[in-house]
């Protein structure tokens, strides 16, 4: 019997401590599948963030470094410049990238660093106990916005993909989501495109991935997927914000 689908060798199945319904599992798998399909599992170096996915290096079967909170793009800059032949990526959450790490990500894009960033946006701080993130939605209740995010006090959520797309050094910027099988397939293609852009030396690539946090949203796994569709996507549109001319010829 011919095997048509196998679990990627890029994932260590025994050690997965993410919560039930967390889409980190899917996001990890898509990145690792893309690397395996390119034959790059032995050629990749990832940088994990601080957050729930601080444990990414337990699950992802590639060489990885941990960085201090928010500094993954700085660490990845060093790695990529010293190892120009390796495939380098950062995998970061919204606290790591959009809060403490806004300086690092903006300047990595600004310099056009040739690595890929996979940005997990779940509109909340997960590991630290469900506090409001820069990406939390107006009205969203979190442990530090108990009556719902008030835009008069703390402003509206930040749209990172849009922001990064304005920077010249960012060659490829797309936002995707993991709420439906169709969107998961699109997310995989975006990740593959990011890696292609990196390999072609075209500049910085950035994929924002709308994800769930059932534990801190206080929703069931199924309702969490609905939250992405009904609440997040209206504010965080799914689209390609920027794509290098060289890739424009391919229509996806």
């Amino acid at each position, binding site marked *: 019997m011919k095997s048509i689908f196998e679990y990627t060798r890029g994932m260590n199945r025994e050690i997965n*401590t*993410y*919560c*039930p319904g967390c889409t980190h599992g899917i996001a990890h798998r898509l990145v690792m599948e893309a690397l395996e399909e390119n034959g790059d599992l032995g050629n990749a170096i990832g940088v994990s963030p601080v957050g*729930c996915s*601080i*444990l990414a290096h337990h699950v992802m079967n590639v060489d990885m470094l941990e960085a201090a909170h928010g500094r993954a793009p700085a660490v990845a800059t060093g790695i990529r410049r010293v190892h120009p032949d390796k495939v380098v990526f950062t995998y970061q959450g919204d606290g790591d990238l959009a809060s403490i790490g806004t300086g690092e990500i903006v300047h990595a894009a600004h310099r056009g660093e040739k690595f890929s960033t996979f940005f997990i946006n779940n509109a909340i701080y*997960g590991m630290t106990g469900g506090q409001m993130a820069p990406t939390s939605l107006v009205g969203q209740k979190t442990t530090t916005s108990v009556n719902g995010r008030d835009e008069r006090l703390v402003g509206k959520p930040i749209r990172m993909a849009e922001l990064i797309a304005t920077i010249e050094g960012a060659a490829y910027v797309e936002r995707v989501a993991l709420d439906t099988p169709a969107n998961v397939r699109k997310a995989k293609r975006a990740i593959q495109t990011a890696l292609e852009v990196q390999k072609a030396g075209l500049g910085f690539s950035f994929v924002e991935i709308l994800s769930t946090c059932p*534990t*801190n949203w206080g929703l069931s796994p199924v309702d969490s997927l609905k939250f992405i569709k009904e609440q997040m996507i209206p504010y965080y549109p799914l689209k390609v914000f920027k794509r290098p001319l060289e890739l424009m010829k391919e229509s996806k």
Partner: protein
Amino acid sequence: MEKKFLLTGFGGQGVLLIGQMIAYGAMYEDLEVTWMPSYGPEMRGGTANCTVIVSDKPIASPVPSQVDVLLAMNEPSLNKYLGQLKKGGDLFINSSIIEKKIEGDQYNVHYVDCAAIAEDYVGSSKSANMVMLGAILDATKVLDPSVMEKTFQKTMKGKKAKFIPSNMKAVNAWRELKNV
């Protein structure tokens, strides 16, 4: 009098809460107390444990090398921490999920099927940790069990207050079942 507890299990079993109840109870009895938690980054699961020291004199350090009482709510914790229990100490094993039995008589071993007691006697499967707390209080006699009423009133407010009656039943369950 000084008693050192190491309470261990996985995240979500309510191990840290057991420690807090002992700590607050000791405060209500005007004893010195330290409570020190330790847990991994996981939001669910992972390891969780706390060290509680109860004393009638000021406590120099919250970090004991050996403890008088060890609670193991799951087997990996039992394996990991048994070495920290002093000889002759009290060992509480959650026999609802731990099948391992301890050979020899170097420890006072108490096998507590807390999940079954919680489900059948108390009528609330989620109070297994409180059943275990009751077993610990009964065997070590470190606190008067009636002080739990005060600690529950203090810590379970608002929406949580409705759990106080079942938690009181759970914390008394081990002692009551022994005398049956």
